[in-house]
């Protein structure tokens, strides 16, 4: 696959971006179109811990939960549904397990499609197993095993192939606890992008060969780590102004998947996806208020603003008063989707979008920057520097700082002194960065090779 860097925006203006609508929709064999004028729920789930002991137990768990979801979807009258299976490690390490589970799930989904005409999709997300106990092993036998897993789930019937890759994580884990801005740009924007560019060409090849859709990645391992360390308003582990800089840099990284052949829908936990969509025009999954079963964050409504699939991130399969957990969340998500689809069908889409966006826009610096108008501006800064991985990551960081600084005049986004101080330090660090990519890359290589014992640049990034 050839890699084509984005240097222009898919959307010429931010206001054109809207949930349920993507410039380049995708369509599954069971009739689900994503980004073609409506929003669909994407249900996520995890097997109960004790079912991981054998393939038989896991297969039976996924059979039951898939049937539960489909049954609820037709009982309540939902026109479409997507299911995402994020692998537990055993399923990726043993490609036949993942393959068989995909097959069992797809068979059930097809039966419902045939009987009721409900439009469906199945996403499989193998785990990024490319690591040894103490360090990343991005290239080598584990890479090959991971590719086998993708082939197996595609053979089994997965419509969308996804993954949450971990390139650069060994440097991010170190940098993020030290407010290290060059480290964030290097780990996410450079190392992460290099790894994604490599792996997504291969995933896209497999997808093409098998006739399925290479969907997309998320910077879960880095930007979400930053978001979780930053935590709630009163947590003191990381300034939220830095967490959002990590996030905007991650948009430049997640974009690499689409440059290497991915088509969307992007993965739910990529909170960078609104930025990515503004550049690439691909459909995206998002999560927020209906993923509180999986995590807490400060922007539950805003993330709906431009979503095409609407996800609950993950819930353990078990009983609730309202049915099994997957049925409850499938219903919640689908009801959210129904409301968005009413808005689209009555000409009120943009009104609802703006209401959802405004409910979180001033809650936190993260929501402020991810609000679609600002997200678009960050996207534009990335696209303008699109051909250079380092410069576009740096541009994303610089634009984020500019937007946050500019917000002070308006006075609606209140920032604590911690947040403004961290922002000022970040600004200083960004201004001090070189414009020469080669120099940056060699400086960082030398620095982190000496400071981080588990950083293995030659083996993992072919330096």
């Amino acid at each position, binding site marked *: 696959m050839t890699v084509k860097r984005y240097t222009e925006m898919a959307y010429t203006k931010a206001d054109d971006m809207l949930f349920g609508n993507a410039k380049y929709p995708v369509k599954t064999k069971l009739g689900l179109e994503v980004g073609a004028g409506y929003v669909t729920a994407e249900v996520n789930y995890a097997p109960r811990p004790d079912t991981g002991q054998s393939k038989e137990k896991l297969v039976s768990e996924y059979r039951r939960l898939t049937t539960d979801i489909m049954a609820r979807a037709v009982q309540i009258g939902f026109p479409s549904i997507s299911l995402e299976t994020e692998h537990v490690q055993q399923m990726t390490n043993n490609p036949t397990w993942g393959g068989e589970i995909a097959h069992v799930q797809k068979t059930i989904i097809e039966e419902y499609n045939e009987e009721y005409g409900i439009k469906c999709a199945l996403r499989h997300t193998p785990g990024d197993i490319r690591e040894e106990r103490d360090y990343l092993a991005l290239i080598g036998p584990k890479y090959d095993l991971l590719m086998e897993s993708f082939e197996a789930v595609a053979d089994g019937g997965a419509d969308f192939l996804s993954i949450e890759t971990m390139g650069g994580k060994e440097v991010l884990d170190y940098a993020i606890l030290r407010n290290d801005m060059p480290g964030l740009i290097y780990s996410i924007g450079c190392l992460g992008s290099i790894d994604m560019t490599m792996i997504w060409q291969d995933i896209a090849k497999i997808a093409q060969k098998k006739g399925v859709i290479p969907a997309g990645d998320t910077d879960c391992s880095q930007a979400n780590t930053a978001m979780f360390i930053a935590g709630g308003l009163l947590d*003191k582990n990381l300034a939220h102004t830095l967490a959002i800089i990590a996030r905007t840099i991650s948009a430049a990284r997640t974009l690499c998947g689409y440059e290497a052949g991915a088509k969307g829908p992007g993965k739910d936990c990529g909170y960078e996806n609104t930025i990515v969509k503004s550049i690439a025009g691909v459909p995206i999954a998002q999560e927020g208020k209906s993923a509180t079963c999986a995590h807490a964050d400060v922007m539950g409504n805003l993330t709906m603003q431009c979503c095409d699939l609407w996800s609950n991130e993950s819930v353990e399969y078990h009983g609730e008063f309202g049915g099994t957990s997957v049925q409850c969340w499938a219903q919640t998500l689908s009801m959210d989707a129904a409301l968005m689809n009413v808005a689209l069908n009555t000409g009120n889409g943009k009104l609802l979008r*703006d209401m959802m966006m405004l*409910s979180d*826009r001033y809650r936190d610096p993260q929501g402020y920057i991810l609000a679609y108008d600002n997200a678009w501006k960050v996207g534009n800064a990335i696209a303008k520097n699109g051909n250079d991985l380092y410069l576009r990551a740096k541009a994303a960081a610089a634009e984020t700082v500019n937007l946050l600084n500019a917000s002070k005049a308006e006075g609606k986004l*209140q920032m604590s002194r911690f*947040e403004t101080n961290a922002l000022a330090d970040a600004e200083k660090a960004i201004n001090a960065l070189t414009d020469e990519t080669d120099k940056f890359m060699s400086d960082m290589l030398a620095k982190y090779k000496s400071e981080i014992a588990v950083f293995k640049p030659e083996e993992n990034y072919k330096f």
Partner: protein
Amino acid sequence: MDVDPSKILIRYNVQKEKAQTPEELAAEQYPKTEPAKSVYRAIFEGEEDDVVEGLKKAIDAGANAIKLIDDMLMPGMKVVTDLYDEGIIFLPNVMMSADAMLAGIEFCKEKSGSAPTPKGKVVCHVAEGDVHDIGKTIVAALLRAAGYEVVDLGRDVPVDEVVAAVKAEKPMMITGTALMTTTMYAFKEINDRLLEAGIKVPFQCGGGAVNQDFVETYELGVYGEEAAHAPQMADMILAGKGLEQLKDNFHMH
């Protein structure tokens, strides 16, 4: 369309902020005399070179290098960790201050040719099968910052290895981190193996997946909700508190 945010949300972090800056609050705690004052400030600012500079001056003036660890470095670091506990400064400041303090300890060790006696030893690990190690790294850093020696076994640590390390290192306390419901059961196994061997060391367990109800199901377990609870618990053990008192204190739910 826009909204007046004060009608729909409250930025409690902004509202609760103290009038004084962290720098001012830290300075209130500095000693009056030099070079101690500069060492405290250098630790707060995370400036390794300035820490060493100040220590040099103190040693030149006749101070005992090893005693400086307890007299200047530890109390200087305590200013920082207290401000973190009070929610006044952020974790990266603590990390950078701890790095500066540790550089100071190394310098004192070199100068004196001897090693200080640490407050106590703690074995830290992430549960078998689990690679989520940032919480553990924070816990280890805060313990070190509080003057404890940390044996960091890393992530995805087999039960056998934890048990062997506890037998070999004889720590005053163990910490375990798990972020997955599938991996936290290893804590129970470690508990059983230690009890079998007649070892009764308090075992503080935390991390996203872990909750108090689960930790209460095994004897040695004490639930740790926030990383800052690890040095707090170590301090309580040093002060002679037993398992039941620890549970009383940390089982808040």
